[in-house]
């Protein structure tokens, strides 16, 4: 490959870095994304021009087919469906890397016995990570799209079986490195890697999906980087490493936000069984729930000077974000301020809730992350909680016996008034009771998120 094309790959990689840097603020993010896209265009065109292409038809047809499918995906996906979309795209990325590594290996064919050990290792790793990403992402997509059960699927001896699979994979890889010509062993490796992807995502519950998607995101990058080692290409290695780093950071943030270790998410099968709250579990004094009518809640909100809305996934499911924005507009028209306090795991993937609120035309300066909003609850008149539960459970701060203890939460209980909009007193995902509901400054407003918000909007107009 000529030095010129290598320099063009460097230009592309630099544009990727500038592009990611642009994402450090919503004001520059769109330009950043476009810079990265230009980088990709440069890399593709450079490859087409300097890649000694002997036959164009297949490549062009394949590129057009892929582009059209991508275009349709991007234009039609709903914002609530973004986690599935990202899972699917991760899968295609990983799949592409695995295919490239496999093709490179098969092309060597009989000559594969002569390939140097480092190329052999890169090929195995590229195929392994890529195939795990591909099948794992498809399962994650299925779970999020509710094609397969969102529950954690468990069976006897699951961990033992997975460990054996993993060992088997290692054995196959060593075999192939020692004697790279064994095509059968290679096919078995591909099959085992695909199975490993399925089996490692199946036991993970729906609410842990943010971690899994982030991790698969990282894998898709690492698979691309490994493929870069196979074909000796700096462009792939740099881009792959950037994505690998990005996925790892997000995985870490999600784990911290849920107060769980990565190992616990991957192997804990959290949410396999639904815990039931036994009646009378609260021997701790006052357990009175104060209910509030739409009119009273509306009065509180209409005269509040500062309101913090805490949206949970229930809000997104109910598609109530547009009504919430309408409510916020009414409060602001009366002179109050409205901010949104967003927990890192508020949606089904990192930052999901922010996208859903942005779609409802909520200005991004009102979207506050946990560390920004927590000091403000002391000065907040009303905290309005819509469809969130575990992320506002004060037990996480104070009750060492709670399953949530240690999880970072939004300190809504410090607000003057707390209005909780919820269907019922049922526990959240973690299956633990929430003492917030019984606090003196808490009012419960029962009903489905959408109906309740619509009622509030009407009542605030009257107030």
């Amino acid at each position, binding site marked *: 490959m000529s030095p010129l094309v290598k320099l063009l790959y460097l230009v592309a990689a630099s544009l990727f870095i500038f592009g990611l840097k642009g994402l450090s603020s919503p004001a520059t*993010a769109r330009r950043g994304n476009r810079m990265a*896209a230009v980088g990709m265009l440069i890399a593709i065109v450079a490859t087409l021009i300097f890649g000694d292409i002997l036959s164009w038809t297949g490549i062009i047809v394949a590129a057009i087919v892929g582009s059209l499918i991508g275009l349709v995906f991007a234009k039609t996906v709903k914002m609530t469906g973004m986690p599935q979309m990202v899972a699917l795209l991760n899968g295609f990325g990983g799949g592409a890397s695995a295919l490239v590594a496999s093709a490179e290996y098969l092309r060597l064919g009989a000559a594969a016995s002569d390939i140097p050990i480092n190329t052999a290792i890169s090929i195995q790793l590229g195929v392994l990570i890529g195939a795990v990403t591909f099948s794992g992402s498809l399962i994650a997509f299925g779970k999020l799209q509710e094609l397969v059960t969102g529950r954690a699927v468990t069976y006897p001896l699951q961990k033992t079986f997975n460990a054996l699979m993993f060992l088997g994979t290692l054995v196959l890889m060593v075999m192939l490195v020692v004697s790279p010509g064994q095509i059968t062993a290679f096919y078995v490796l591909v099959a085992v890697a695909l199975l490993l992807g399925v089996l490692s995502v199946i036991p993970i519950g729906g609410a842990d999906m943010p971690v899994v998607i982030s991790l698969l995101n990282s894998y898709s990058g690492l698979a691309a980087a490994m493929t870069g080692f196979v074909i000796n290409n700096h462009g792939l290695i740099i881009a792959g*490493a950037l994505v690998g780093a990005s996925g790892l950071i997000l995985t870490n943030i999600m784990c911290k936000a849920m107060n769980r270790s990565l190992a616990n998410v991957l192997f804990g099968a959290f949410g396999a069984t639904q815990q039931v709250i036994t009646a009378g579990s609260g021997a701790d004094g006052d357990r009175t729930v104060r209910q509030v009518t739409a009119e009273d809640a509306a009065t509180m909100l209409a005269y509040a000077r500062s309101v913090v809305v805490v949206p949970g996934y229930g809000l997104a499911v109910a598609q109530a974000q547009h009504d919430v924005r309408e409510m916020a507009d009414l409060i602001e028209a009366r002179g109050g301020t409205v901010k949104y306090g967003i927990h890192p795991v508020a949606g089904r993937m*990192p930052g999901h809730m922010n996208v859903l609120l942005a779609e409802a035309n909520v200005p991004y300066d009102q979207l506050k992350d946990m560390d920004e909003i927590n000091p403000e609850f002391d000065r907040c008149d009303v905290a309005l909680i819509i469809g969130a539960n575990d992320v506002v459970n004060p037990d996480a701060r104070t009750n060492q016996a709670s399953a949530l203890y240690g999880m970072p939460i939004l300190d809504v209980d410090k607000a003057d008034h707390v209005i909780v909009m919820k269907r019922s007193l049922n526990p959240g995902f973690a299956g633990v009771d929430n003492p917030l509901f019984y606090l003196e400054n808490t009012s419960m407003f029962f009903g489905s998120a959408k109906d309740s918000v619509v009622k509030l909007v009407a009542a605030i107009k009257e107030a």
Partner: protein
Amino acid sequence: MTETLVVLIVVFVLAMFVGFEVITKVPPTLHTPLMSGSNAISGIAIIGAILVSREGGTELPTILGFVAVVFAMINVVGGFMVTDRMLEMFKRKPEEQ
């Protein structure tokens, strides 16, 4: 260990460091676009896909290469476009008149 491999490892490790530095500065608000955008970047496998299918024909490796081109292009086009669609929605509060 060949000289080439060492250079590749150096590039990989340094790029990881750059990635960590740049991405820790992305605010939580933009984490979803970050994922879809970085996802599009991992579609860089398109380069490899083009290179393995450059000879054309109907040999198995070339066919795998074509499929890889389709997959990678879905990733690239879908990823960048959906990210753009999301980022377009992030707007500042209009200035009060």
